[in-house]
């Protein structure tokens, strides 16, 4: 095919006042650089520059065996590490047509949802902090600590667990796991009211977010905005509902969709998701069936040649894993479709015409994790 050569796009017009937000900036949640052209306080356009922590996970996967890949996926979206692990595990199990024990499915679902709550808690902290309410940050972290303690007791680490393995789990849950989770849910149901009192209902917060950064449903779908972000625009995209995995088919839960498409809708979606996750956990926690914690797997896992795709609902949206296998023990090509990556691509479109403060609020409501973008 013949190449059509476009003239190089002028990066930023000379006469515009442009500032670099990042790579070191408190509100970019990591090393993301946004070149923002301003007119006074108003954002005219914005160019994200990624890649400051690009580690080439996709390339590294090509030399790793499937069990080894698990620990790399932890490091993509480190706030929902379990869910990333789950995606790869499900993919390998699907390719090998392994049926994992029910117990594993239950535990994975519970742990995923706990991880989702923990991730949303951290999002709430940083959202509050980006809005200028620093106290939110400490409340969110205080409650997240409870989940991390449960994780640490059961899986040995607080952030990067590598707990799932293809075919099952690394080890069985701790005997106190169920009890602690129930204690936590009781605790957190009380504390989430504080969240609402402190931030959700606050008039300043409402003013800052209502009608800010609106994106329509069509655009949200076209941009591939998923997760609570996409569902804030009315895009029903919950993978747990549409392509169920784990034991999501067996539990009753609502897909939280709002149609306003603004920052407040995205905010409230996440708040509701925390409650919904607690509902899911409550339905499952007492019913974990007894059984083995791992299916029988071969020592060396080789995927049959072909291509596989697995979608899971990460805390930020739809996480897709695409693998092309040539029958070896390492993947031929591994591609992660990460939710933050797609969500970031909308930032320019959404934030045009907003103020700098709105840009920060929109960025916070998108909840992107930079290693998830850069991979």
């Amino acid at each position, binding site marked *: *095919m*013949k*190449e*059509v050569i*476009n003239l190089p*796009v002028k990066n930023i017009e000379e006469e515009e006042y442009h500032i670099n937000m990042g790579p070191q900036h408190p509100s970019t949640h990591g090393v993301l650089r946004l070149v923002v052209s301003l007119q006074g306080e108003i954002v005219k356009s914005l160019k994200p520059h*990624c*890649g400051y922590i*690009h580690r*080439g996970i*996709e*390339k*590294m996967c090509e*030399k790793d065996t499937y069990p080894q890949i698990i620990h790399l996926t932890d490091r993509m979206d480190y706030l929902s590490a379990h869910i990333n692990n789950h995606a790869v595990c499900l993919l390998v199990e699907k390719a090998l047509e392994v049926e994992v024990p029910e117990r594993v499915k239950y535990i994975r679902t519970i742990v995923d949802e706990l991880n989702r709550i923990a991730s949303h808690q951290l999002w709430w902290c940083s959202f509050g902090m980006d809005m200028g309410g620093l106290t939110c940050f400490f409340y969110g972290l205080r409650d997240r600590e409870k989940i991390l303690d449960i994780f640490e007791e059961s899986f040995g680490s607080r952030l990067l667990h590598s707990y799932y393995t293809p075919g099952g789990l690394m080890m069985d849950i701790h005997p106190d796991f169920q009890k602690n989770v129930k204690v936590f849910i009781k605790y957190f149901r009380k504390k989430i009211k504080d969240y609402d009192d402190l931030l959700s209902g606050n008039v300043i917060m409402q003013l800052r977010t209502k009608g800010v950064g609106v994106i329509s449903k*069509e*655009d949200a*779908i*076209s*941009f*591939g905005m*998923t997760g609570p972000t996409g569902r804030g625009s009315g*895009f*029903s*995209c919950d993978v747990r509902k*549409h392509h169920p995995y784990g034991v999501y088919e067996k539990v009753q839960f609502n897909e939280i969709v709002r149609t306003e498409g603004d920052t407040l809708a995205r905010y409230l979606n996440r708040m509701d998701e925390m409650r919904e996750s607690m509902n899911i956990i409550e339905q499952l926690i007492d019913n974990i069936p007894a059984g083995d914690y791992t299916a029988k797997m071969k020592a060396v896992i080789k995927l049959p040649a*072909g*291509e*596989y*795709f697995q*979608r899971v609902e990460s805390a930020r949206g*739809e996480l*897709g894993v*695409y693998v*092309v296998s040539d029958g070896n023990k390492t993947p031929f*090509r591994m*591609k992660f*479709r990460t939710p933050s*990556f*797609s969500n*970031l*691509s*909308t930032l320019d*479109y959404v934030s045009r015409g907003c103020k700098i403060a709105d840009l920060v609020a929109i960025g916070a409501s998108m909840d992107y994790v930079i290693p998830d973008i*850069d991979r």
Partner: protein
Amino acid sequence: MDTAALKERILGLVPEATLVENKQFLTFVIPAAKMHDLALKLKYEADLAFDYLFCQSGVDMVKTLQVVYHLESTTLIHQLELKVETADRENPVFDTVCDIWMTAEFHEREIFDLMGIRFNNHPDLRRLFLDEEWKGYPLRKDYVDEVNIVEL
């Protein structure tokens, strides 16, 4: 639309499309020149309505370079996988689909960055992750990494 009907429909639109064996999705290899037209039809024709491009990946198949499109219709709930290939490793070029699915803008930049596949009519085709001065395309199979950072 179920898989069989979808298959007929796609083959009706692009007779040259070749079916690829895939357990999960209905997969076609589309001639590169037809891809943009097909994409337009896929999105805007009411019985197809593939409005959601949930993944776009570049794959180096050693002999060829591929771009894989994973499409879903959020209204009709059906999925489709499309591939375009080129044997030209020196200057691989496809048409962009970022005017149809806006998410493709970043995905195509990523593919250009790591696979070296260029896209016609892309509004801002620059490297996304790596420096502008970076030599080579790391995800290609023939990429030589002098420092050997992956194995280190």
